[in-house]
């Protein structure tokens, strides 16, 4: 409703994040904002203002789907919006995240060396040594590669459902969205 606000341009940051990861992986650390800010807003304010207003990824999918007309605009299959799937995907996503943190720990403790790969779709190790790392300590660089993989993977999946279903289909099963909604449920319990 009404004209564009400053936060309607967050998609630029989301797109920049993905592009800059090709040049310097250290910037992947900024992705933590997408992790902690939604939870902080949900915990402090008890709402989903992050999803509702600020989420750059949602805006990016919206742009691709609507402005570039890359979306079929079909309804998502029923199972995708079931709580089983949404919470199941959240658990799976967090398990993969924990695994990534463990790999960071292995490098931190010296048990394994820095591996300059970005893991895509939890399966494919894409060599990523072409990107700089701004002289980060090995464990911090490992985390950056890991986190960039998480962000790239979720973007790829989100793009797939953007094309197949409605532009922001990702929002239906976004782990952050599921988590912030759960936080809001607990916080606003009657």
């Amino acid at each position, binding site marked *: 409703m009404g004209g564009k606000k400053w936060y309607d341009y967050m998609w630029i940051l989301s797109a920049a994040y993905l592009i800059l990861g090709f040049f310097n992986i250290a910037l992947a650390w900024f992705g933590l904002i997408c992790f902690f800010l939604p939870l902080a807003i949900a915990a402090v304010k008890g709402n*989903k203002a992050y999803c509702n*207003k600020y989420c750059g990824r949602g805006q990016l999918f919206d742009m691709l789907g609507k402005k570039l007309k890359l979306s079929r605009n079909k309804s998502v299959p029923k199972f995708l919006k079931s709580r089983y799937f949404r919470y199941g995907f959240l658990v799976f996503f967090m398990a993969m995240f924990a695994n990534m943190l463990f790999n960071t720990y292995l490098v931190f403790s010296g048990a394994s060396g820095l591996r300059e790969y970005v893991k895509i779709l939890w399966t494919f190790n894409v060599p990523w040594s072409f990107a700089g790392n701004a002289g980060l300590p090995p464990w911090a660089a490992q985390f950056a590669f890991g986190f960039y993989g998480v962000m790239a993977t979720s973007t790829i999946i989100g793009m797939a459902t953007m094309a197949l279903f409605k532009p922001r289909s990702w929002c239906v099963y976004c782990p952050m969205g*599921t988590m912030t909604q759960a936080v809001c449920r607990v916080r606003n319990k009657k």
Partner: protein
Amino acid sequence: MRKYAVVDEYHCVACGCCVKVCPKGAISVPHGIFAVVDIDKCVGCGLCAKECPASVVWLKERRDI
């Protein structure tokens, strides 16, 4: 007959896509749990229903007006 929007509160993911497209400011996500329609403001245009990524908003006929 005039219509108004109804939300499946159980399946709503509270993403707020509907809020962004509503020309009347008649839909909101007050507590981050599900969207709520202000029936007095809703004109039943259906933009929110079309936008909803989860397809959990639909139009209902106003029988009492």
